[in-house]
């Protein structure tokens, strides 16, 4: 790409975006663009070569992130980005494979794949943009919608218990688990870079605003009141969020108008699926335990 004539001719991440697909489809005030930019910067920070960067997404507003990135991108079906990414990673372990998708895609229709990929410690980076609702289809409640929230399908308030995603991810076996909000872009970027470099199943939840889908039905009255009330939530969160390293994921439930815990919940090492697969011994048919023991002995010697 040629040098810009002036500092205003190009945005620092222009080269990573597909200009011919812009403008994007996201609503004013949406947080997905912020996450996408943090992701691009994290890839640079983690020094992942451009040709090794693979993004797989599902369906929904967040899934559209795939369309705008200028790298290998696979926009799969609703709920299935994790198994699609699993196939890519196992076929070519040199690639850095990320999944960016929404709370509905990853935890409702695709919830089964999430827990199993975490359990078998597939070497993937999963980023969930959690905006508490199904934005693309017009603001229905989802698996992370806080209790008592109003959405277009919970007009009298949500009576379902939402998932606590850091708790779900840590208990399923993820090696790195963090939660940030779109107000915290530098921590988000740095955390994403850590996750990209880390082996195993890494997971970052990004709390993101959806003024159109989730913001509106939770407000009553005029649009200006909605905006105010929406602002109140963010102000409230900004004042009250608690940043912790090694926070207790069991305490990370999100409740309407209450403090949100953000931070890194897990950072552990555990052999990945590919690590253990490489130890299978079809020649002598030894059990994994014996192979590992022998490898350890060899390292000692």
């Amino acid at each position, binding site marked *: 790409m040629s040098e810009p004539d002036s500092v205003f001719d190009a945005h620092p991440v222009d080269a990573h975006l597909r200009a011919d697909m812009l403008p994007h489809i996201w609503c004013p005030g949406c947080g997905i663009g912020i996450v996408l930019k943090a992701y691009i910067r994290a890839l640079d920070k983690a020094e992942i070569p451009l040709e090794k960067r693979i993004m797989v997404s599902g369906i929904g507003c967040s899934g559209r992130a795939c369309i705008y990135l200028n790298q*290998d991108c696979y926009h799969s079906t609703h709920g299935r980005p994790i198994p699609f990414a699993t196939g890519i990673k196992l*076929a*070519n372990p040199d690639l850095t494979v990320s999944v960016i998708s929404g709370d509905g895609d990853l935890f409702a229709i695709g919830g089964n794949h999430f827990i199993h990929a975490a359990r078998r410690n597939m070497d993937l980076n999963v980023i969930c943009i959690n905006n508490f609702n199904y934005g693309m289809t017009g603001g229905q409640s989802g698996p992370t919608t806080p209790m008592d929230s109003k959405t277009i399908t919970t007009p009298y308030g949500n009576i379902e218990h939402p998932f606590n995603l850091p708790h779900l991810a840590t208990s399923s076996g993820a090696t790195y688990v963090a939660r940030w909000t779109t107000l915290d872009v530098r921590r988000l970027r740095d955390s994403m870079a850590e996750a990209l470099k880390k082996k195993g199943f890494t997971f970052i939840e990004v709390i993101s605003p959806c003024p159109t889908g989730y913001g509106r039905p939770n407000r009553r009255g005029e649009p200006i009141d909605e905006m105010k009330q929406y602002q109140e939530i963010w102000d409230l969160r900004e004042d009250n969020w608690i940043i912790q390293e090694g926070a207790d994921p069991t305490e990370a439930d999100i409740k309407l108008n209450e403090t949100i815990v953000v931070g890194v919940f897990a950072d552990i090492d555990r052999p990945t699926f590919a690590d253990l697969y490489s130890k299978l011994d079809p020649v002598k048919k030894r059990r994994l335990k014996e192979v590992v023991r022998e490898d350890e002995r060899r390292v000692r010697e």
Partner: protein
Amino acid sequence: MTRPKVLTGTHFMHGDFAVAEGGLAAGCKFFAGYPITPATEVAERMAGRLPEIGGVYIQMEDELGSMAAILGASCAGVKSMTSTSGPGFSLMQENIGLGAVLEVPCVVVDVQRGGPSTGLPTSVSQQDMMQAKWGSHGDYPIVAYSPASPQECFDIAIKAFNTAEKYRTPVLVMSDEVVGHMTERVTIPEESAIKIVERKLYDGDPDKYLPYRADEDLIPPMALAGDGCKVHMTGLIHDEGGRPLLNAETEAKLVGRLLDKVVKHAEAIMEYEKIGTEDADVIVVAYGITGRIANRAVELARKEGIKAGLVRLITVWPFPVDYIRKLSENVKTILVPEINFGQIVLEVERVVGGRATVEQVTYIPGTLPDPYSMLKRIREAVK
């Protein structure tokens, strides 16, 4: 000692094992699946064999994930397959459509059992033949083979991979419980004697790559994940650059080309076996295990002096429209025996268009047709 990729020699082999061995011989290095009767043995074979030859076997959490995983692996350049039966085949449908529209080569084996729903898990049927063609939503191309023996399971698995690679499309192997669970002689040739087709890869300037710019043969060269070509693949209707363009014009261009990709190469893809069709008054059109049984019935009829013939479909989709239509001009009756309540008979009726009498010969799923009942129908047809 580990076994080689191609198990050259003569074996007494299970049909499900044979389809797995055929896949391996064709170069399959990735299998993602989920246990289901009567297809489980395909996965079992792969679990033992793939680690021997440096491939990857993974048991997924469900068939939705299995299908998505083989698409991903194929996008990264590894020949991939999965196997399942009716209920799992239903779950795979959405991603079979994704594979068709992303143009990802892969092979799906459906060892058919009785349905609908959980149905008859351990018994034979041919009830997924229309699902094979129409199972995913929208219009999309599909190729489906139907093996009639363990030997054909092996041979067809290779052909299925070659077709998938050549035309960049998912290919189905519509086996069934009887063929899958039958153990018979399977002869595996020398590796050098097996014809292998590899997908057309993109070798131009990575910055100029358009993932869906097709050559004259309607097939776009493929760049793999990690090739540096900035591949964009989406299940949304897209233009040559892989850019979503949500309008009727792009739908017409993309879906039109996808369908033409198989239609225009149908003659090269289609395979069927003809027995005694030249002078026949009555023709049996059958496939899979039913085709094999029909072979015996036609043989018995000939012994009685009845001019009977058989068209055994090896590819069921694409359907040999022109051939069956032409054939129907010279025969009195066409019998279509199937282990279902009437599926491919509908296609035969459509194609024949009243030129000959088309009779459905129904075998209830769970029963294996016997050649004598088929012979009876042949006799009645010429009365």
